[in-house]
């Protein structure tokens, strides 16, 4: 194995057939793996108007050419599917150990099709691949399922759904290694719709580099860069991502009470600093990761991973809650049920505003920390109001006559940044192919932290190129598949040299950026084929029409129209946001 194994495992749960196929290496070169490969395969496999919860949808678990190579953070993998929450192309990305172990099974990707007749699990070991009965696991939480299937981080790894996926919640995540999550867009529901409970992997093959000497040198140099950067050697290990809470609040960009305000008076109580002083036990690393950003926390209810910034926000400021213990316990409940913490917290915040406006009959109110855990369980089990909340904030708010109160883009709940305070972030959320998402090119770096340099967050001219380049870069990292935190210290040029050393092929940074742009465009084309258009590149009216009422970002709304026009031009798309033939030809997408 030198980067790619050249093999894809294709399992049809309806016919119970298991086939090994070859990876087209030209496709490997053009899309690498992970998100890029997933998008390309999805284009072929899931045509227009397929119901995401039907057997015709697929799940594509994909590693990248660097996975399991030993490159720093080369543990990650992705799942691609058509999202039951948004109807768009969707990929979600996770760390831990499962991706590494799956690669060691000798495959670049796993395609799962059809629907099993009854609860099933897939087991891939050196002895072969088997479909096994999972009736005794159906209904169990993620923690119990993972333990029952023999999770052992470095040897045997479990990926599974919890009750949320079984109950087809559109907010359901796929969990791996107990508490890592392929969260956004409802892939857990797709897995549940196939009656697939778990995928267990045990591998033995190694991803050995083609150019061993160069690889050793590059590995050493990459390690030095990560160690030298205060971001990856200090900030993330010491405080985790929740340290972002106070800076976002300080600039007046922390969405509070369903984006009604942009500062939370108790932000410090739910920050990384407070976490370190209270429930934090230690930090933890994924396989081959020197950064160690994961938090392990403990309350009377138990010990587990988190909370990350987004979770501390979604159950915190978004719901008007300043109780870190309650937030952590809601996080644990999401992990055990297999739910996306961003979407769940945001949907609860939406429900709270609807309740306070008298539109929904519920006890949920901003600040009701005591109701968070119970509501998470209600969503997972489709119980009471949870049955309606389980399909996300947009469908929920629409049912009660106020879809404008769903703080989502393309029905994916937006994360923890008020785009009225960060114009580039607004453009990012509106144009992201999978919906409201910060992981497709977060503008926190340039607009707030001066990474790589500071730009005025209120300016809305000339942001388009920066956003587009960030989006392309995020797609590169997602296709390699590495952790985006390495990109804080390591450039795309370095990634190209690492990839060249592992694969024996000659990659330059321009080649990788082309992969990123190609991935972005094929995702866009997929969505256009599904019926999305320029009118879907938008944000809730609150962000476009209601100025922030007070604080450092007072008076601002998102100036989306001029940014969008500039963005389409920069992307080489027409005025309707459709990639031109010239752009498609440039990116080897002219077969579309």
């Amino acid at each position, binding site marked *: 194995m030198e980067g790619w194994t050249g093999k894809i495992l294709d399992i049809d749960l309806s016919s119970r057939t298991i086939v090994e196929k070859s990876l087209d290496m030209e496709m490997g070169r053009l899309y690498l793996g992970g998100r890029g490969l997933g998008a390309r395969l999805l284009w072929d496999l899931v045509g227009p108007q397929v119901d995401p919860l039907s057997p015709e949808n697929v799940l594509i678990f994909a590693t990248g050419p660097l996975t399991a190579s030993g490159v720093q953070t080369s543990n990650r993998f992705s799942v691609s599917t058509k999202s039951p929450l948004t109807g768009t192309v969707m990929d979600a990305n996770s760390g831990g150990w499962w991706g590494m172990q799956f690669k060691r099974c000798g495959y670049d990707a796993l395609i799962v099709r059809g629907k099993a007749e009854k609860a099933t699990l897939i087991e891939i070991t050196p002895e072969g691949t088997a479909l096994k009965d999972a009736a005794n696991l159906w209904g169990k939480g993620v923690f119990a399922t993972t333990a029952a299937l023999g999770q052992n981080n470095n040897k045997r790894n479990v990926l599974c759904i919890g009750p949320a996926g079984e109950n087809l919640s559109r907010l359901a995540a796929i969990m791996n290694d107990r508490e890592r999550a392929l969260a956004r867009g409802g892939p857990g529901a797709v897995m549940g719709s196939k009656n697939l409970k778990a995928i267990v992997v045990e591998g033995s093959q190694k991803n050995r580099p083609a150019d061993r000497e160069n690889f050793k040198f590059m590995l050493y140099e990459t390690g030095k860069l990560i160690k030298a950067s205060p971001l990856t050697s*200090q*900030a*993330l290990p*010491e405080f985790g991502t929740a*340290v*972002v809470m106070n800076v976002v609040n300080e600039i007046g960009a922390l969405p509070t009470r369903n984006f009604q305000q942009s500062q939370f008076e108790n932000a410090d109580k739910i920050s990384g600093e407070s976490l370190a002083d209270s429930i934090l036990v230690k930090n933890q690393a994924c396989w081959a990761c020197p950064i160690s950003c994961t938090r392990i926390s403990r309350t009377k209810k138990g010990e587990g991973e988190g909370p990350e910034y987004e979770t501390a926000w979604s159950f915190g400021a978004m719901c008007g809650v300043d109780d870190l213990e309650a937030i952590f316990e809601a996080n644990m409940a999401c992990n055990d049920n297999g739910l996306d913490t961003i979407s769940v917290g945001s949907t609860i915040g939406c429900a709270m505003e609807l309740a306070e406006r008298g539109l929904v009959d519920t006890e949920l109110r901003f600040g009701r920390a005591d109701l968070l855990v119970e509501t998470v369980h209600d969503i997972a089990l489709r119980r009471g109001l949870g049955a309606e909340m389980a399909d996300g904030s947009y469908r929920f708010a629409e049912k009660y006559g106020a879809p404008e109160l769903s703080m989502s883009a393309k029905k994916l709940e937006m994360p923890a940044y008020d785009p009225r305070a960060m114009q580039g972030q607004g453009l990012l959320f509106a144009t992201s192919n999978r919906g409201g998402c910060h992981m497709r090119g*977060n503008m926190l*770096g340039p607009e707030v932290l001066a990474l790589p340099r500071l730009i005025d967050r209120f300016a809305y001219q000339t942001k388009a190129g920066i956003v587009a380049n960030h989006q392309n870069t995020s797609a590169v990292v997602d296709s390699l598949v590495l952790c985006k935190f390495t*990109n804080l210290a390591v450039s795309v040029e370095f990634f190209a040299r690492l990839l060249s050393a592992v694969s024996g092929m000659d990659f330059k940074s321009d080649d990788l950026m082309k992969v990123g742009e190609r991935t972005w465009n094929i995702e866009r084309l997929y969505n256009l084929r599904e019926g999305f258009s320029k009118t879907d590149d938008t944000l809730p009216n609150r962000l476009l029409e209601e100025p922030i009422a007070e604080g450092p970002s007072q008076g601002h709304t998102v100036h989306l129209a001029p940014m969008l026009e500039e963005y389409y031009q920069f992307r080489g798309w027409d005025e309707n946001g459709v990639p031109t033939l010239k752009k498609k030809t440039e990116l080897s997408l002219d077969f579309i």
Partner: protein
Amino acid sequence: MAQVKLFGNLRNYAVSPQVDIPGADIAAILQSLFESNPGLYDALLEDGKIRPYYRIMINGRDIELADGIHTQVNEIDQIAIFPPIAGGQQ
């Protein structure tokens, strides 16, 4: 007096995470801050300049977009100092 707020590991070098400090501009504020919290000097400065990745904001706006350390400070201003921070980004 302006209110100075410290975040991240800068809190380890100060008597309190939040202090009221006199000063007409950011440079003067920092000078006063170091006098009452000497550990902050080395934490924040390298060769007399603010270390890379450290940010200083006045009322939520980065001083780099104003006059840097010569940015004027008024009585009710809030100054926030952040060490290197990362999360959810590339």
